[in-house]
């Protein structure tokens, strides 16, 4: 029975999506269709609450524990918020195939859940592919826009290329251990092959997470994809990919050699530095947020680098991940609400007058990304991650990280400044009407960003449990 229960949320989503594909066709172009999709996500979340933890190691390739449950909930909630907040925007973006759109989103989410729940490499790979394939399609779903197709193509080719590396890594692991399971095998001696297999999986997953120097797809895809899709993927893909990365790395850490240190250190530094430096140059907000996501992934990786010394590093990373999700979903959702083609900084100039709510939320999110009060989530996450880095003795890394976060303020601030302090171009001064659902979702996000930081203990307890269940206390 174990295998069934662990499969339940995924089944809910995937079977549900199938049902939706059929019934949604009947409800086409009504709000009901969208709400049916939301209902499915809610049901999945409910399922996540119900299912029990796996006893021992799962034999069906999936495992339920605090870690996967937490991240699954985060992914689902993130998906829900992004779908709800962009519901109105999707129609405005000219995506004709709403039915397929929600279907693909639901399947992408179920793929993400597979990545989160996986306990063997085959599930991991299938999960990655399910999520990726659905997202390739979603990126191109604004089919009449050149950049949408372009982003889809780039994502597809690069994604498949990196999947090949991931797969080669899995093959090497299999070759070395004779098993596809993610269980550390005491009998298998540590050798170069395992080492290389980890490096290859790292490369493959670093691509999915969007770590420099495997980040090239991120800006292009984030910018080219419809904003609603970007909103969705910025959260769901990030969570799932980090879950997978964490699983792989924790497995890697069980081998005594500090093999990971150099590679992860370099990845983190490159991601932070290149991400921030490039973001500094952007005039396109989506692109800037994309580069920022690269940089933020770098900060999170700082937590993982310190993981070698205990589960607190993972906990810090998870905390960061959760608060980052809230901020990034919110930022993109605001952009989506501003308009289907809102991208350049000029498009949000004067937003404070056109819609104080959107501008206010945007400011909260961007301050959070910059790690400044009053959006305390950003600050406390940085606090946890950097303090883990320090306690692990990674002073150099911590210094690079904080200098980067200071540098990042330069571009994060540009957005609130444009929203509040610069006047709108003549042709876009009319107020923006924000649908109630969007407003609600955004306010919730903003509240989360503030409150997670102000009262971090509950979430901190959760991520600690999660980290313990992943690493072992």
């Amino acid at each position: 029975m174990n295998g069934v229960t662990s499969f339940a949320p995924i089944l809910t989503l995937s079977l549900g999506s199938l049902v939706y594909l059929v019934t949604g066709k009947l409800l086409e172009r009504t709000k009901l269709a969208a709400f049916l999709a939301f209902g499915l996500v809610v049901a999945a979340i409910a399922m996540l609450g119900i299912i029990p933890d796996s006893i021992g190691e799962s034999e069906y390739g999936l495992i339920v524990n605090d870690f996967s449950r937490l991240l699954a909930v985060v992914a689902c909630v993130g998906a829900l918020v992004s779908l709800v907040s962009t519901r109105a925007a999707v129609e405005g973006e000219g995506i004709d195939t709403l039915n397929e759109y929600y279907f693909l989103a639901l399947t992408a989410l179920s793929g993400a859940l597979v990545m989160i729940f996986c306990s063997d490499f085959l599930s991991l790979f299938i999960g990655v592919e399910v999520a990726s394939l659905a997202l390739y399609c979603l990126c191109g779903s604004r089919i009449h826009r050149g950049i949408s197709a372009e982003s889809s193509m780039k994502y597809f080719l690069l994604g498949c290329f990196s999947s090949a590396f991931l797969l080669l890594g899995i093959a090497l692991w299999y070759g070395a251990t004779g098993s596809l399971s993610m269980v550390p095998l005491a009998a298998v001696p540590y050798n170069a092959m395992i080492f290389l297999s980890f490096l290859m999986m790292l490369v493959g997953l670093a691509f999915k997470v969007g770590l420099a120097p495997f980040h090239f797809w991120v800006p292009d895809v984030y910018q080219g994809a419809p904003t609603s899709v970007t909103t969705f993927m910025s959260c769901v893909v990030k969570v799932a990919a980090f879950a997978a990365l964490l699983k792989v790395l924790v497995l890697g850490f069980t081998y005594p050699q500090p093999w990971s240190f150099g590679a992860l250190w370099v990845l983190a530094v490159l991601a932070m530095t290149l991400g921030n430096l490039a973001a500094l140059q952007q005039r396109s907000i989506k692109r800037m947020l994309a580069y920022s996501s690269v940089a933020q992934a770098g900060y999170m990786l700082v937590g993982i680098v310190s993981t070698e010394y205990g589960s607190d590093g993972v906990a810090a990373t998870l905390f960061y991940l959760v608060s980052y999700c809230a901020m990034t979903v919110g930022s993109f959702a605001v952009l989506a609400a501003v308009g289907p083609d809102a991208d350049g900084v000029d498009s949000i100039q004067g937003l404070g007058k056109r819609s104080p709510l959107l501008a206010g939320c945007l400011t909260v999110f961007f301050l959070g990304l910059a790690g400044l009060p009053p959006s305390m989530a950003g600050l406390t996450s940085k606090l946890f991650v950097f303090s883990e880095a320090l306690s692990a003795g990674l002073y150099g890394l911590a210094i690079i990280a904080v200098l980067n976060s200071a540098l990042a303020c330069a571009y994060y601030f540009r957005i609130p400044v444009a929203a509040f302090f610069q006047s709108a171009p003549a042709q876009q001064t009319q107020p923006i009407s924000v649908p109630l659902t969007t407003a609600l979702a955004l306010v919730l996000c903003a509240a989360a960003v503030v409150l997670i930081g102000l009262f971090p203990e509950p979430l901190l307890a959760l991520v600690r449990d999660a980290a313990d269940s992943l690493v072992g206390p």
Partner: protein
Amino acid sequence: MDIGWPPLSFVILLPLIGGLVCLGPWFAPERDAASRLCRTWSLVVSSLTLALLLAVAQGGMGAPDVLLSVSETRAWIPSLGIYWNLTLDGLSLAFTLLTCVVSLAVLAWSARPAQAGAGWYSLLLIGQATVLGAFLATDLVVFYCFFEAMLLPMLAAMALWGGPRRFQAALKFLLYTMVGSVMMFLAILYIGWKGLGVLATHGAETIFAFDVTTLSTTKMLGPDEQLWLGLAFLIAFAVKTPIVPLHGWLPEAYREAPHGTAAFTAALLGKVGIYGIIRFAMPLFPGFMLEAAPHLAALGAIGVAYGAAVAMAQRDVRSLLAYSSVSHLGFCVLGIAAATEMAVTGAVFQAVSHGLVTAALFLVFGAITDREGTRDMDSLGGLAARIPVGAFFLMVFSIAAVALPLTSSFVGEFLVIIGSWQAFPQWTSVALIGVVLGAVYTLTAYLKVMFGPEREPATASDADLQGGDVLVLGALAALVIILGIFPQGALSSISPAIEVQLAQAAGSVEDEAKAQLRAPLSAEVTVQPARLESAIAESSR
């Protein structure tokens, strides 16, 4: 002292909530009416805050010979040892009162940026709340949060209503402070992490891993740690203060900001740096501070002279005030470096006094330059006859800026100079160059603006300062002079707190010195014998 309700949190929350309330009318359609309402509202809130603060201080004072100390604690992130710890002692009282007074003055000042409306009051109140928070917090993380947060309302006001280059100025301000403060952030985390470990072994039930008073008793930081962590703290505070040569953000920021913001920034934000060094750096890194003292003194003294020299070359009134701030705050740095009770008390007094004086100067010059439509001193002149009241107040505050006796600045500068002389006579002498140059640029500015023949015939538009503003300036002037004639009350409230800070530092140094005596070969910390003795004497007293 247990009052039953958290009075210090209220001191912070009152203006914060008041400011947030003002955010609503900012977007209201009836801007003028809303603005007037908000003005009254903000004045009430700010006055209440001042009253509350005074009441808390009064209540905390209790018996005359008991040290003022009101504190409250509340769990924030207990699993990491982060607590919402606030303390009001003589040191923080001085700065919090300054904050309240200056905020009230800026809020009451009639001239504010055109089209500012309710947002102006909102941002100022929020700014007041954050600065108050920074002055009250003893938990390093809480302090850091306020330290960062107080930047934002000022930046917003600057970006909204500043001069033509406001965005660049704001960005520069932001980046300078951020680069400075993130290193401190890291240092705080390191200290907290270490503190958590060290304090856990003591077996206390609640671990204030980030609380400065708790941490300073542990003496857990070795010389190398003190060096790097202390450096991080110092740089953060040095940028904020600013200490030469980290003042690159300052001229442009003061040039571009609206008067009120400039006054607020100059009078209060910089003081957080001074306060931070005394409150945090001195007890946490006593050995390092002792080592760094000569360098710090040098920077302070050079700052005094350099700021004054550069101020002499200015034509823009604001730039002049900016550099004069650098110069005057150099005295504070010098006093802190000297680390005698007299000098540090003087430094605090000087900081408070500079806050009052510089805020008033920014406001008066602001009113004048607005009226005349230029900030170039060379194109001003002959105003004394046209605006006698303004000229009078400008004279009073210029005199105070020059630190003539019976103004508060004199007391501060005098104590700093006398107190620093015994430690660093050479650097104190350098600072004295600034005393002369200070007179030069201040009087030159006054001469250029006020004296000389009238430029153009008086018109109806150039009315003199009006009722409310005269009241504000009068109050500030009265404070400056009262503090100059009767400073003993303030001094005797500040100095015990300073004594405590110094004793904490000295206690740690003493231990280090003892450790050194035991292991004479490890001569990593070179302690100046004379000052060590005095430090020991003080701590034992």
